[in-house]
């Protein structure tokens, strides 16, 4: 657990902090995710993806649940995360993150904004449409296009 913590705690904490904006709450999410993994290491199926992306998605989902003051809605068992190319090593991960940040930087602002509201604020497409005054279909399209743009940037 110490090895895991030293390697991934910064990632989990950063994700949770970005969503929650509160250090104490982010630390609680960090603790909760690691404890779930400790109690049940079989939750993570290594044949279906790498640990880092999986942990990142679990931490984000738990943070959103915490933000919305709701009981955890996603069964960890159900979460399968596939990232291509493989990001097992620190170097690959670092390169991929550079590409992601670059893609975010060049993304049209409305698209990036819709994506970040959905992802980091946990807003539904309906809530985003109401908040921005944009049509619902436009928001859906922007969210999907934003995610695909990240994938394309990493593969390139």
């Amino acid at each position, binding site marked *: *657990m110490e090895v895991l913590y030293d390697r991934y705690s910064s990632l989990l904490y950063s994700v949770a902090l970005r969503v929650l904006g509160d250090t104490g709450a982010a630390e609680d999410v960090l603790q909760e995710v690691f404890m779930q993994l400790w109690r049940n290491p079989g939750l993570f199926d290594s044949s279906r993806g790498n640990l880092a992306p999986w942990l990142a998605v679990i931490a984000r989902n738990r943070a959103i649940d915490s933000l919305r003051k709701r009981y955890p809605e996603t069964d960890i068992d159900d979460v399968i995360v596939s*990232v291509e190319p493989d990001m097992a090593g620190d170097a690959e991960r670092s390169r991929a993150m550079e590409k*992601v*940040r670059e893609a*975010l930087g060049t993304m049209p602002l409305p698209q990036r904004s819709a994506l970040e509201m959905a992802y980091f604020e946990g807003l539904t497409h309906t809530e985003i449409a109401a908040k921005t005054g944009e049509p619902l279909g436009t928001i859906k399209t922007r969210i999907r296009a934003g995610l*695909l743009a990240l994938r394309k940037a990493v593969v390139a």
Partner: protein
Amino acid sequence: MSVHEQFAEDLALHALGSLQGNELVALETHLQSCADCRRELELLRGDMALLAMSTTGSAPPRHARPRLLDAVAREPRQIAASVPSRRGRWGFAPWFATAAAAVIIVLLLRQNSELQGSIAALNTLFTDQKLQLQRAEDMVETLTAAESQQVTLVAAKNTPQPQGKTFYLRNKGSLIFLASNMPDLPLQKAYELWLIPTSGAPIPAGVFKPNARGSATVIDPPLPAGVEAKAFAITIEPEAGSTTPTMPIVMLGSGE
């Protein structure tokens, strides 16, 4: 890979956890039968992970590490609900594999124990049913066997209505008694059936009380096998029964 276009945007929303209501139900139903869309959902979650990982940079507070390790030390690992089944593409720490193997062993042991329990329960049930079947076969034989001795008992004092009939299989000591129109009993009293052998004292053959319609049965009372019955009789006895008949005999019948 070909994702169904009508679900393309909903897949992204589902990955984010924001799809609800009928749209969610429709997509979940579709996912059960569409491997391509399931794969796309995994990839979209991967895209989400990229977004999450782009936030790296903040270190947790120093006390978070000892807090976690302390919690880990205080809490033993429990049984896993699911187990990794295939070799990973990444070389994860060996303790993970060890833990998974331990979990598999515990699960198999538990499953084995449960199966043993189920087998024992089924054996008990089988034995019970076998005994019940044997008992039923014995009763049918007592009723239908050619050598079954049938005796009709009538009221001793010219009262035709009360009637009792015994079916007695001497070699097995098996007896079935059916009565009808039996008069009501005094308080704290019961009828007792007696087997009157060709020699020796009457043998108690069951205590009974008729129901509201005057009917009663005695099935397979404890009797010694091989006793030849000269007659059957009924007396009124205390509710617990007697070892010798109390006079008078209220019903009596001899072999037909």
